[in-house]
């Protein structure tokens, strides 16, 4: 974007440009990305990203596996925030099949997704500062991310490959005591974030390396399809959770942090603020979680079951009495007319009728579901022809579009700025290559 930051290159000396292959294996390409970079000294003259080293044909896999079989594969599309991929996929199928999702499911999905956003941003924070050269924040961020991953392991059985959401509900209810664990973690996190900010926020080196570097504006974002924190750092309060509320995001109160600078530092600040907002959402969702602790629900269910059994037995006794042509007891008759109490349908973790995973066939139709993943718009375009396998599954990863802006941001900047700029975009390569 900017021309060479006040540095003018004089071509007095006979010199030639140097082509450097940054990647596919390089410490700060966050995976296998190759950037064919032409350098004039330390100034980037030209850059061409080469992607595809991590292409695992996830879209083709979706076409020859049933919907349930394909589900574990989704985790591997974008493994730092796999709950979002699952959500987007399940939502697409649920809307196609017209399923109602109980409130409890929606809230648990919301809690896990927001925690996942924090864990993803934490990893970004650590690696971003590692790219800048600071080592300690990386370990601090990973230490705290591990606490969140432990919560995910408790709920889904795996740290990163969750496979937890199901079409129409969840794999299992939250475990007992999980809510307390989450509260413990999210009450501790703000203190940790304050520590990060003390190390990083106003550090003169960080400021000098980040402020005014890699500036983009809204037009650039639209030109390259950039979404997410990078777009919000340009001053556009575009957040699908706010603008097109899905799940139960319309029931919680949160802000969309924005910045107007559009530089690396603005993106850093937006992400840090987003983590605080996510904590707010998790707090509210935990307070309003329909049904509360699973143990309470089980207790209530047992009580209701007891009443239902009583009614059933009263009914039986009345029928026996009628068969024997004797007078049934009035208490029994009264009991028989009672409606057996039912658990609030919002408290379920599956829809009213459990979807048979093995033989699930959505009706003919298509659907593009979009969510606001930690990196921007995450979409799943799903076309069903009524068979148990999809006709076409297309993943719209935010990183794919966000990466395409990198060359235009870098040309004219210094080579070390590449690490700051690339880190601030928070690109994750498995999502680019799928």
């Amino acid at each position, binding site marked *: 974007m900017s021309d060479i930051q006040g540095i003018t290159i004089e071509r007095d000396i006979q010199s030639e440009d140097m082509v450097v292959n940054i990647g596919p294996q390089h410490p700060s390409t966050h995976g296998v990305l190759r950037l064919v970079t032409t350098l004039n000294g330390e100034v980037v003259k030209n850059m061409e990203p080469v992607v595809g080293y991590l292409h695992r044909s996830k879209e083709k896999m979706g076409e020859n596996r049933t919907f349930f079989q394909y589900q574990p594969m989704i985790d591997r599309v974008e493994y730092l925030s796999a709950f979002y991929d699952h959500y987007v996929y399940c939502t697409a199928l649920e809307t196609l099949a017209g399923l109602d999702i109980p409130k409890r499911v929606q809230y648990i999905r919301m809690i896990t997704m927001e925690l996942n956003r924090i864990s993803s941003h934490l990893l970004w924070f650590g690696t971003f500062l590692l790219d800048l050269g600071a080592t300690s924040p990386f370990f601090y961020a990973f230490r705290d991310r591990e606490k969140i991953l432990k919560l995910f392991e408790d709920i889904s059985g795996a740290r990163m490959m969750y496979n937890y959401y199901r079409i129409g509900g969840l794999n299992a209810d939250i475990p007992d005591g999980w809510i307390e664990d989450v509260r413990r973690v999210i009450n501790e996190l703000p203190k940790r974030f304050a520590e990060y900010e003390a190390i990083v926020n106003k550090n003169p080196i960080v400021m000098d390396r980040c402020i005014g570097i890699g500036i983009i504006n809204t037009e650039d974002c639209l030109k390259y399809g950039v979404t997410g924190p990078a777009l919000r750092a340009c001053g556009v309060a575009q957040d699908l959770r706010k603008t097109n509320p899905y799940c139960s995001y319309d029931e919680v109160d949160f802000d969309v942090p924005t*910045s107007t600078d559009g530089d690396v530092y603005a993106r850093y600040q937006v992400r840090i603020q987003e983590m605080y907002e996510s904590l707010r959402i998790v707090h509210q969702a935990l307070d309003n979680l329909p049904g509360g602790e699973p143990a309470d629900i089980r207790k209530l269910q047992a009580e209701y079951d007891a009443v239902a059994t009583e009614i059933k037995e009263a009914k039986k006794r009345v029928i026996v009495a009628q068969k024997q042509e004797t007078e049934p007891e009035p208490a029994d008759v009264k009991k028989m007319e009672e409606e057996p109490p039912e658990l609030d349908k919002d408290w379920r973790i599956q829809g009213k009728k459990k979807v048979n995973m093995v033989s699930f066939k959505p009706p003919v139709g298509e659907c593009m579901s979009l969510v606001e993943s930690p990196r921007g718009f995450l979409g799943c375009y799903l076309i069903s022809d009524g068979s148990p396998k999809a006709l076409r599954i297309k993943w719209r990863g935010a990183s794919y579009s966000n990466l395409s802006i990198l060359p235009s941001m870098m040309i004219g900047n210094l080579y070390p700025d590449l690490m700051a700029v690339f880190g601030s975009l928070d690109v994750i390569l498995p999502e680019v290559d799928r």
Partner: protein
Amino acid sequence: MSPVGNENRVLSGLVEIGRGLATVMSHFGREPVTLEYPEVMPDLSTRFHGRLCLLTKSDSTDLCIGCKACARVCPCDDLIQIEMHRDENKKPVIDRFTIDIGRCIFCGNCTEVCPVDCIKMLSDFELADYSREALVLDKFDLNLPGEASDQWRVEHGLEKTVK
């Protein structure tokens, strides 16, 4: 919103570097979070997706009915292979049940569809072996003895004891 304020950058720079140093140093005495794995086993949750196993009845006889539901929902090709026949009482007899644990992605799909709650996951994650052949677990490796199966069921809230 612009982070470029009007403070003296030399002084504030020094102060902020000092603040960063102090924050880093405040971690000096804290308890390390490292777990030294072979000595300290990680605290795994009960739902952990570890090695697959086959629960048995309380008398250690097969619980599996050979319906092949697990093989059908498995995302990997031919990972679970089952051969069965029915004896004279029309009871299912499992001749062969193998899982190639080396290709397993531990997604847990199979555990979810099992109609008799037979194929389940343990929290055992130490699965390395010297050859690929050794990673193909057969029925003998997979079957949990009756007592262990009952214990598993108690731990995971599946209280009914299968006779």
